[in-house]
């Protein structure tokens, strides 16, 4: 059996695709994409995501934000997924999914607070049932199983949508939950962001499986691959899957083929383990230029609108960054006050001690 190669997102093997890398239409577009103008919101969301990423990286570099995981090159996934979900569905993201979060109504300030080291960022003002970003790889898939079960038990037409990376598909949590979801036929969509790398581990070293989509066979349902750099393809596949799930169909799995154009996080240096040429080649396939080319070709978009959009995004981000930077740190008592519904008596003296010894400065000797 062949060892899988790290898929080139250029190749034919990226699954379902509507737009070529150059923005050419390859097959009849799905209903939602018939009117190019209707695609503008998706384009806008991707551009905003990338602009936000850029700013977050800059904040991190200047010591104003903690470690940050950019979604550069993978914007079509978050946008494709979240734009197909309904408000009442539940998103269970991993740490690279602020793109999806933004569309779900999580604010930029909240996202910045989280990555800036403040739990209040997870207290979403909208999207109240969505889970926060998840750091322990694949552990969120178990939660998604439970969320989906609760929906099924209550005969709701809601669905749970769980995002995970290619590396996450090696983990027991992913498999156990997928298997249980298959046995229980719960309304759960697993969406794999296959960006070809798990920090320094290339897709080929992660699993000998020819595709990650085929892993669903182990749980008794089918997985499909889509071009994760084509937001139309992602959204179409997700919409299709969610319709099936709402109709009582079992779980679904989509492997979205994309590429991590940036470092793993701001704490990583990808030049240590992958060739610059690989990365620059992959820039040809990235999702934003692709959709822009299409929109420009159809006359639905142009240079001026693009400049206006960039400005608009920058202003929106400016406001969020200002609000973020103006947010005072949480009170030390916050460590205690959200741990249990009510503070146990045993913790009261410790809380007092924390207040007594609270230091105003933020010591960073590390």
């Amino acid at each position, binding site marked *: 059996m062949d060892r899988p190669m790290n898929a080139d997102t250029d190749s034919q093997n990226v699954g379902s695709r509507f737009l070529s890398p150059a923005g050419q239409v390859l097959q009849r577009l799905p209903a939602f994409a018939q009117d190019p103008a209707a695609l503008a919101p998706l384009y806008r969301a991707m551009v905003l995501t990338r602009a936000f990423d850029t700013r977050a990286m800059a904040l991190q570099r200047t010591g104003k934000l903690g470690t940050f995981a950019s979604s550069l090159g993978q914007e079509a996934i978050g946008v494709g997924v979240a734009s197909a979900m309904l408000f009442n569905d*539940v998103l*269970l993201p991993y740490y690279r999914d602020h793109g999806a979060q933004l569309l779900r109504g999580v604010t930029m300030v909240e996202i910045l607070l989280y990555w800036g080291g403040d*739990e*209040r960022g*997870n*207290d*979403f003002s909208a999207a*109240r*049932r969505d*889970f*926060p970003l998840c750091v*322990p790889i694949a*552990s969120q*898939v*178990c*939660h*998604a*199983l*439970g*969320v*989906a*079960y*609760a*929906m099924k*038990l209550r005969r709701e037409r809601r669905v*749970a949508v769980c995002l995970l990376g290619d590396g996450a598909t090696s983990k*027991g*949590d992913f498999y*156990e*939950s997928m*298997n*249980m979801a298959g*046995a229980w036929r719960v309304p759960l969509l697993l969406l794999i962001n296959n960006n070809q790398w798990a920090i320094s581990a290339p897709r080929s070293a992660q699993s000998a499986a020819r595709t990650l989509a085929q892993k669903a066979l182990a749980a008794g349902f089918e997985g499909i691959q889509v071009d994760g750099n084509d937001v139309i393809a992602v959204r179409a596949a997700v919409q299709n899957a969610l319709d099936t799930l709402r109709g009582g169909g079992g779980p679904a799995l989509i492997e979205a083929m994309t590429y991590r154009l940036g470092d793993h996080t701001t704490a990583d240096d990808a030049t240590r383990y992958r060739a610059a040429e690989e990365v620059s080649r992959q820039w040809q396939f990235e999702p934003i230029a692709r959709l822009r080319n299409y929109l420009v070709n159809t006359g639905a978009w142009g240079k001026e609108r693009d400049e206006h959009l960039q400005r608009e995004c920058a202003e929106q981000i400016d406001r969020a960054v200002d609000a973020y930077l103006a947010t005072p740190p949480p009170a030390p008592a*916050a460590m205690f006050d*959200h*741990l*249990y*519904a009510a503070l*146990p*008596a*045993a*913790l009261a003296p410790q809380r007092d001690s924390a207040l007594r010894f609270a230091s105003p400065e933020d010591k960073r000797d590390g």
Partner: protein
Amino acid sequence: MAELNLVEAVNAALAYELAHDACVVLLGEDIGVNGGVFRATLGLQARFGAERVLDTPLAETAIAGAAIGMAAEGLKPVAEIQFTGFIYPALDQIVNHASRLRHRTRGRLTCPMVLRSPYGAGIHAPEHHSESPEALFAHVPGLRMVIPSSPSRAYGLLLAAIRDPDPVIFFEPTRLYRLFRQEVDDNGAALPLDACFVVREGGDMTFVSWGAMLRETLDAADILAGEGVTADVIDVATLKPLDMATILESVAKTGRCVIVHEAARSGGFGAEIAAGLVEHGLSSLLAPVQRVTGYDVVVPLARLEYQYLPSVERILAAARAALEFK
């Protein structure tokens, strides 16, 4: 009032709460048709349906993790781990998620779940069926760690655990499941989850214990009583958060304390109690605090397991040492 043994009391509490709260669901391996390998869930699937009493595939990580998802979505899942020796694959979900969901979302999402598990040695079970890892959970902020030592406390504490808005780990001593019966009023009354129970009062010394070892501890107290020595006997019941105040109060009175638990000594939860005594009760201590515990070894297979378990003799020896200390 019915005479129930401990496993029947567990069953009664589960049934009561399933009947009174539509959000409660049970999940676990073999808990449905089979009624659980110890019959703790006997008859519940027939009564409440397979959607609320849910047989799972064999996967402890997913069981714990799914319970978290259910809880966040408003259910009150009570998950069973078939034996505590198989709870470790669930630990990641418990430590990294269940215990933190409220905290990390500032209360937006919460985790009102219970993880039940039969625990402890002494029933000559196969390998990996005799563990007592309560100290692991009692160290994790955000959890409650609860262990009943009698049918009535099993009933009341389990009801409290299910109703508690935060995650509760609930260990049921297998050795006690069928060992004795007790009047239990199936009236839905819960017991507090933040208090030790003083199960016997005396003036000369304090015994602190929990779970199955309370039996041997009470036996030792009986023997001492026959010799004219009276002891407070405290059933800790809720190890986390710990009601140290009750223990300190008793030791302030007696000055002598013997802690008895089944788990290995080193880093066992008895250490926390001893530490609490030397931090906050040093001046009242008339003798070294003794711990009578399982040894720091792997729980042996059946032929040696009673050499491992604290015996009445070992407890008595420790108590005498404490009493005689000048």
